[in-house]
């Protein structure tokens, strides 16, 4: 078990190293990072001065090692726009994004688990149809459009929720629902098909043969085994939520990492973009590691392997 987790941890570190390389080369994709980061109407002299200041005229290898050593110390340079350390700015925005993503995740799980269990345990009924419908809806409605429509209806027409900003419980409802719809559909589909599969397992028949009643069989047996599948996808979906927050935070002016990504990209503030990309990727990698640990905790078969 320790060896398994250790190897996963080493893989994660290597992955983060790869992300750094990727981030380094991404801003050099066009060949001239100075031109890319300066305003389009900047004079050639200004661009040249900027290139000099950022060290873009040094040999690529040297730039690379300079970038890597700084990055490993958590230093991604200063935001071109805000003149503040990029890393610190990103970390300051993180709590707001986590709050929104967790709210969206909670909403998705809260609806999807009961729905998926009901649908999966009664195949062919109206519940099953609803389940499949929800799965389809989650996959076909873009969250940015849903967000706009909900603002138009619930905020503008009915005035139930604020149209933008972060503050109070009501401000998080619409963004969380809009962001959570896609994972909601995914989870519903997954739980439904997992329940369908697990309830035909021999050990479920054993559970019934002990005289257990349905609620006990579902809560203590079926759901436990479904949760193995669920755990594997919650991490992946959390990564999706970070991506989706770019739209949702922009639309709702939610002061998180997602909105910052959009702003930084528009302002061509690439040191900030690099820090954002690194932190987001790091978060996903960490999440995958947590998923592995959760796996080990739930499934004794993995614990046993050495």
């Amino acid at each position, binding site marked *: 078990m320790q060896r398994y987790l250790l190897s996963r941890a080493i893989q994660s570190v290597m992955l983060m190293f790869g992300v750094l390389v990727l981030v380094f080369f991404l801003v050099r994709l066009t060949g001239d990072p100075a031109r890319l980061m300066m305003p389009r109407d900047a004079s050639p002299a200004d661009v040249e001065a900027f290139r000099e200041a950022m060290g873009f005229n040094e040999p690529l290898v040297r730039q690379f090692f300079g970038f890597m050593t700084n990055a490993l110390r958590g230093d991604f340079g200063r935001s071109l726009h805000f003149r503040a350390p990029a890393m610190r700015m990103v970390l300051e925005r993180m709590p707001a994004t986590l709050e929104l993503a967790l709210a969206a995740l909670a909403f998705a799980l809260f609806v999807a688990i009961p729905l998926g269990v009901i649908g999966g345990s009664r195949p062919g009924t109206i519940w099953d149809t609803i389940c499949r419908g929800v799965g389809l809806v989650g996959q076909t409605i873009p969250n940015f459009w849903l967000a706009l429509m909900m603002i138009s209806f619930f905020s503008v027409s009915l005035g139930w929720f604020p149209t933008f900003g972060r503050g109070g419980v009501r401000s998080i409802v619409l963004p969380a629902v809009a962001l959570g719809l896609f994972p909601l559909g995914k989870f519903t589909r997954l739980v439904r098909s997992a329940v369908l599969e697990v309830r*035909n*397992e*021999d*050990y479920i*028949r*054993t*559970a*019934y*043969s*002990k*005289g*257990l*009643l349905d609620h*006990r069989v579902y809560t*203590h*047996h079926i759901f*436990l*085994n479904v949760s*193995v599948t669920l755990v594997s996808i919650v991490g992946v979906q959390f990564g999706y939520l970070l991506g989706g927050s770019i739209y949702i935070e922009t639309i709702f002016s939610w002061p998180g990492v997602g909105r910052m990504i959009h702003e930084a990209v528009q302002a061509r503030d690439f040191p900030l973009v690099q820090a954002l990309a690194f932190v987001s990727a790091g978060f996903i990698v960490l999440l995958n590691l947590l998923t592995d640990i959760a796996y080990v905790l*739930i*499934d*004794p*078969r993995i614990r*046993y392997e050495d």
Partner: protein
Amino acid sequence: MNQMQDTGPLLSVRNLAVQFNTVDGIVHAVNGISFDLFRGETLGVVGESGSGKSVSMLSLVRLVPEPPGEVTDGSALFRGTHETVDLLKLSWREMAAVRGRRIGFVFQDPLSSLNPLISVGKQIREVLERHNRARGKAAKRRSIELLALVGIPDPEKRYYSYPHEFSGGMRQRVMIAIAIACDPEVIIADEPTTALDVTIQAQIVDLLVRLKRELGISVIWISHDLGVVAGIADRVLVMYGGTAVETGTAETVYQHPRHPYTVGLLGAVPKLHEHNERLVNIEGRPPSVYSRLEQCPFAPRCPWAFERCTQQRPPLLPTGRDEGHSSACWYDLELNERRPGRST
């Protein structure tokens, strides 16, 4: 009712019929079988896969998934120490109170039959707590006792182990511990040794026979293997095509089989000490029953079949050889003649 409680069979099943409603039509899996299970005896239920042997026994306690399964006819009087109930008329909740407490189960594949994510201790304990036999520390103590009783070494430690940490035989011992946990009156063992190594099979047979004797449990032992059933069953029920074709004491059925199918099955069992015994191969394959049976299900494969066999289904009738020996065949193997007439 009262006087029957002491003398009558523990379980009498009459005319049980089970069907599966599938998209491709109705499959008549069990077509009206009747049998008795007496106190303290082992009834061997023998047949090929698809003969309806498992379905009929599991449908008694509603462990056949519904839908598609459906019990369409019959009764199953279960004469308990307190009351007599018809199992087929119980509500789902009442049936759940019988399962695990008065009827225990041992299934074929002990690996897939135990929940891989739950420690075996908890899985035993669960049945004790469900039927209020023990709680908390007492439940744990009792579970460890049960593990010891079924012959698992170091039970205090093994209580915390997970199914995959056990060998196949040990897993089956855990299943047996669950089955006997609440002192049931009946154990239904559905091919309990089929998935095990040959060397382990004998151990599991011995264990079940010993527990049955010590605890006074009646056992329904489902098997496709006459060889296994031969040594342990008091009486035998031979099934084919969802019907009972022959029943009687184990000795009579083995020594004097009266149904051509039983004869074929016995021929198919290699006997080590009779090396020149010919191995009879039963031609053809078992029927898949999409229509209600109007004929003898074995007729298409039967070497003695004649006209009547395809026109009328033979009922299970006493052979007269000894008490309780019955066979469902239009051909009298002993006299070597066809039974006349259309009367039953």
